[in-house]
């Protein structure tokens, strides 16, 4: 074989040495190890939550409001609803602004103003969540003279925007210029192309960004402390203090009562399950709309 190679003038490839094989195996082993290390805490947390929390989840927990101090029983139904309400408001405000900013950065932001927006957005991403809470307090609570679901939603929306904006920008930049040109070539205007072609092509990536932002703020407590504030009762009004799972967990976990501790564990488990199911549901819906070969 080696002779044939040299006859053709091609360099003879030496056999793979044991050292290269060993390095190959070592690197593969290391990368598997890092995956295990990264995933281990996630599974450990989830397993521990199930272990501590599953016993306290029952119909009452999911359908009743908290019982007064000293009484055993009751549940977090109002907090589950409150979290859903606040996250709904946050998504309603945060997703359009985030995607809009991302579109601007990718399609019109190749200039100094765009660079400034990118910088500000990255800084905003690093602002501690409690500070965002204070901002929402100043913007909404002080004016309304009320703690409210709206204030909580605004705080979480502000936290969602930079993540969504930057991932949207990255995903749109991945859409080949040739796809945009194809649309221009058909006499489609620029805004139409952005809306119906570029955004649509990048949809699955943008949804990943939205879900990341959503999952990140879903469990936030600090920005809700003095915005949504918490509530022992049902509330569906946007301008009234509203319970949230994370707030309820915080209050109950710090309390001196064993029953509240158990409920805090159960609340944590419910919160994680809700986030995971919300993300999974969106993924399934998106996948269903896909065409063969897309």
């Amino acid at each position, binding site marked *: 074989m080696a002779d044939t190679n040299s006859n053709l003038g091609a360099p003879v490839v030496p056999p793979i040495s044991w050292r290269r094989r060993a390095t190959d195996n070592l690197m593969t082993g290391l990368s598997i190890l890092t995956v295990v290390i990264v995933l281990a805490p996630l599974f450990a947390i989830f397993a521990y939550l199930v272990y501590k929390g599953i016993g306290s989840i029952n119909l009452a927990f999911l359908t009743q409001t908290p019982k007064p101090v000293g009484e055993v029983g009751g549940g977090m139904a109002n907090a589950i609803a409150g979290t859903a309400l606040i996250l709904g408001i946050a998504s309603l405000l945060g997703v359009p602004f985030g995607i809009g900013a991302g579109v601007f950065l990718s399609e019109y932001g*190749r200039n100094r103003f765009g660079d400034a927006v990118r910088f500000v957005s990255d800084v905003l991403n690093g602002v501690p969540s409690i500070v965002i809470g204070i901002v929402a307090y100043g913007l909404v609570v002080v004016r309304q003279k009320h703690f409210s679901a709206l204030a909580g939603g605004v705080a979480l929306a502000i936290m969602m925007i930079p993540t969504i904006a930057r991932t949207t920008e990255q995903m749109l930049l991945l859409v*080949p210029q*040739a*796809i945009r*040109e*194809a*649309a*221009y*070539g*058909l*006499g*489609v*205007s620029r805004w*139409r*192309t952005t809306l*119906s*072609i570029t955004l*649509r*092509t990048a*949809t699955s990536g943008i949804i990943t960004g939205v879900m990341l932002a959503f999952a990140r703020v879903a469990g936030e407590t600090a920005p809700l402390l003095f915005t949504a504030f918490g509530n022992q009762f049902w509330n569906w009004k946007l301008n009234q203090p509203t319970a949230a799972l994370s707030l309820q967990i915080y209050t109950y976990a710090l309390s001196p009562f064993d029953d509240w501790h158990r409920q805090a564990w159960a609340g944590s488990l419910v919160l994680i399950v809700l986030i995971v199911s919300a993300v999974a549901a969106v993924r399934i819906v998106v996948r269903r709309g896909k*065409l*063969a*070969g*897309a």
Partner: protein
Amino acid sequence: MGVGITVEHLNAFYGKTQALFDINLTVQANHATALIGPSGCGKSTFIRCLNRMHETIPEARVEGKVRIGELSVYNGTSATQLRRRVGMVFQKPNPFPTMSIYDNVAAGLKLNGFRKRKQLDEVVEKSLRSSALFDEVKDSLHKKSGASLSGGQQQRLCIARALAVQPEVLLMDEPCSALDPISTGKIEELIFQLKEQYTIVIVTHNMQQAARVAEFTGFFLLGKLVEFDKTEKVFTNPSDKRTEDYVTGRFG
């Protein structure tokens, strides 16, 4: 029906770099015109000036006059209006990956606000038939993505997509450079049929292709139009020495 194209004193720039120098030529209606020349000579830039695609690149600009039929391209016509009458097929097939085959072809009409279902169906079928793709895809029009087709099929899909908006001129920027000889053959056959209805300008690196499909040929070199004449004359009896060197393979 196709319309003719007149180009007068066309200069094109990318920032400070001049890419085209004083181009003058006339393209006959309902004929195929081929543009040849070595890489980087300005053929693609030139063809992109005809439908104002050149100016979508940051800092690119154009000077001079281009008329397509009675339309003055750089004077009082909006780029989107113009592009509906001047279709374009690109070097690399670029179907919209998230759209079905049907939606790819209907895209030009739908995105411009045309929504009559029955007429859309007719236009899509007619366009796919014109690009000789209909029989291969008729069973999966709505089921498959445009990106799931083979390279040659994708390019014919892009031609169908361009035809669906019923342009008068079809610009083709090296439409066969990513295709195998069989797909290339199909597209050349297609160009032959399409000339009856459209004016075709095709950029190509393949001189045999130019000789096969086009009645007129222009030779570009370093941003200048060196020679423009009947294809036969350009290939057998060119009047410029540089053209002769290029077509006989002495350089480039």
